[in-house]
């Protein structure tokens, strides 16, 4: 009970901290959005027309009232789910813009995260199970070498090889210019094709953390007395590896996985940027460079809430998976 109250309290406190941080960020930064938008539009080598600057400033509006009143208005708007109008996509609202981006990120990053976790856990468990064999060395060293490649760099090479040179896959974007987003097969196959390279660059570098984490955990659990006793009991290697090794070793990774899932909402800035993938990460970078504060604030909020919820779910899942925690929770 207290456990739940504590978690909920922490949840709210963090949410408040995130919201407040969001409120403060634009107010602590130099420069104004109108200038940023127009500078980007005209480029650095042409003069910005002061009249145009003035018009854009009028359009975006400036917050009025003292800081406290602004803070109150801001909280009120948030409570009503009003995130304001995006400075980049004026006059569209932040909700419109994010609504378009979310599915892309959810699918691309979600699928690759889950696959990475799955692949990483299986390979890590296998490496631990075959510890000190060649399989182990191949997996650990192989994943080390492949997994440490900077994935933005890898992404560039993938584009060059598979998109530019071989032309197997498109060079970027979530879908082609020719297809209209919609619930049809053609669009899905197009979208899938566009997701292969970004997905691949995430998948190549994604599992290493899980592999090494799982391997380490499992080497430890397999070294525990209960695993030794299981051997003495004459259980099959498989049974030992699964029930006495992997089953326990996976537990500490659950939290990490939940956080990884939670941060999906944040997207992957680098990959989405390189592939022009229409997801949240690229949106974030765009919001930041355009000083699109409403959009940025909301993205921040979404990401934080995502991580918080994931953390919360991880705790619940942990309690479900690990009987040792379950008891404390029930008490």
């Amino acid at each position, binding site marked *: 009970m207290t456990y739940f109250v504590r978690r909920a309290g922490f949840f709210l406190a963090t949410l408040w901290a995130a919201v407040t941080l969001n409120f403060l960020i634009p107010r602590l930064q130099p420069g104004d959005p109108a200038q940023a938008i127009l500078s980007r539009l005209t480029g650095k080598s042409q003069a910005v027309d002061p009249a145009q600057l003035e018009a854009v400033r009028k359009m975006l509006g400036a917050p009025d009232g003292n800081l406290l009143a602004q803070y109150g208005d801001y909280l009120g708007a948030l409570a009503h789910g009003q995130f304001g109008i995006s400075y980049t*996509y004026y006059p569209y609202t932040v909700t419109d813009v994010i609504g378009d981006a979310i599915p892309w990120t959810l699918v691309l990053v979600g699928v690759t995260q889950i696959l990475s976790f799955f692949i990483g856990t299986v390979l890590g468990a296998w490496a631990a199970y075959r510890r000190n064999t060649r399989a182990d060395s191949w997996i650990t060293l192989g994943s080390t070498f492949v997994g440490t490649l900077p994935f933005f760099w890898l992404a560039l090479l993938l584009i060059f090889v598979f998109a530019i040179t071989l032309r197997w896959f498109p060079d970027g974007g979530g879908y082609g210019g020719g297809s209209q987003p919609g619930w049809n097969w053609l669009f899905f196959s197009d979208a899938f094709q566009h997701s292969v390279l970004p997905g691949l660059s995430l998948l190549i570098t994604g599992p290493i953390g899980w592999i090494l984490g799982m391997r380490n955990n499992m080497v430890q659990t397999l070294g525990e007395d209960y695993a030794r006793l299981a051997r003495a009991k004459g259980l099959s290697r498989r049974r030992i590896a699964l029930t006495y090794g992997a089953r326990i070793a996976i537990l500490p990774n659950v939290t990490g996985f939940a956080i990884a899932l939670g941060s999906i909402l944040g997207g992957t800035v680098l990959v989405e940027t390189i592939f022009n993938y229409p997801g949240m990460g690229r949106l974030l970078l765009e919001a930041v460079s355009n000083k699109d504060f409403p959009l940025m604030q909301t993205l921040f909020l979404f990401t934080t809430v995502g991580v918080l919820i994931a953390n919360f779910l991880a705790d619940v899942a942990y309690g479900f998976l690990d009987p040792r925690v379950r008891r404390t929770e029930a008490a």
Partner: protein
Amino acid sequence: MMRRPRSTTALVAGMASLSLFLTGCTGTENADASAGSDGMINYLNFGDFGGGTAPKANYNPYLPAFKLSATDYVHERLMIVEGTKCREVPWLATSYEWTDPKTLVFDVRQGVKWNDGKPFTAEDVAFSFNLLKKHSALDSVGVWDSDLTSVKATGGNKKVTFSFDKPGATAFTRITETAIVPEHIWSKVKDPTTFTNAKNPVGTGPFTVKSLNPRRLVIERNPDYWQADKVKVKEIRFNKADAGGQVEQLKLSRGEYDQQGMFIPDIKKSYVARDPEHHKYWYAPGGSISVYMNLTEKPFDDVKFRRALTTAFDDKTVIRKAQLGYVKEASQTGLVVPGQEKWLPKGIEDQGRIAYDPKAADKALTKAGYEKDSQGRRLGKDGKPISFSFKVPGEWTDWVASADIVIKNLKSLGFEVEKETPSPDAAIEDRQTGRYDMTFGVHGGSCNMYNNFSDPLNSDRTAPIGKKAMSNEVRWKDAKTDELLADLKSATSEKDQKKAVAGLTRVMTDEVPMIPIWYGAKWFQYKTTKAVGWPNAENPYASAADPLLWMTHLKPAKD
């Protein structure tokens, strides 16, 4: 070699074959039949179309910072003042006349129809301007910032009359930059400031919007266009290319665009060389990029000092090394030459370009009382070594490289110069508030001569140090300049205008409020496999920013 990579390879291959299977084949888009048999160009691939990384439909011409580029092909203007030589090309108006210095009358073209079939009239024009009056946030060109008082349809709905309370000549280009929208649609719009005009935007232009997805915007030829006979392009496809990174560069260099306007390094090698016959570019000069000195500080407040520095900078090296040879040396007059050469005062040497001559600079400085000490340090009038900082946004690498050369030049003259590289935001803010010693600034380059000189030099447009200046960032305050600007503002005849401009260029060359180094380039690449007739250095009939003009010039390539 290893377990995982092997499976990765398999995965790649699997996915590849799967996706090939799913879509049948890729790359068909490029297999085009370029020129149609009907003497038309089937379609052209253009570059980016604005609207951020994930554009949403927005064809409101009064939201220039947010509209998609199709808007410029749908909504037209009374006249087009093309951006290279500032020629006035009649468009929705056939002619204009200053009936007196405070009254401007346009003759509206007859027989033009909106693309929904309704006729275009002078009422529409008046409506459009009055809409901007009502919603000042939409007035992005600042038509009503001038002394304009009213816009009315006159002459039996065939003329539009603009009335000013003071001589309003300078407002002319602003008026010509304002798009005209249909009254029958826009009068029903509740809030035009948030109107996206997303569905079938109605305009008089040569194209209508065909389709949009965030990757591609397609517009198609308007068969009922008032000069439809001149438009030979059936369809234009704009491709999302906002990243400007390697991939875009590669696509450009492979000739995937018929027209593009982006930076690409070493263009001769990476673009032209790929297909010298068809891959072309034309980087027309834009605004002047100048060395700004803080005129409120010593020794920059000394005109002799500033004049001495005009020969101090090695423009050619800046252009060759830092600017990759893409730009041209700027004239000290503040004009963009050769495009604006007609404004040059008589007898000026080399169109006002001042050659690099460190010895002359050294001599002039010494003569002005800034001597070098025994250690080679340049001393101020107070006898102390002159030292100042040069601010340049760290992220703008070409500017940084240019600054490096400029600083090297200054150091060789005995100044102590420290380079500071703040973020662009901070640098811009510092420049506006006057918190700098020396920096780069941009000014001029438009066809509105008044704006070109008033923005950087008008004492109305400056502010004390610490406050944001509107545009006079060097803090130039000079009665003679203000007077010349006032003359220019009220001058309706070209002769009077030329006289005032000549005076202003002399302020630039004699008083040296700033030292122009190079002209910012307007990126413009084009391909002649499908279409010919693009503007270029040989035939600079329009600038990169005047697509409506090229559209009436492009013809199918003959091969």
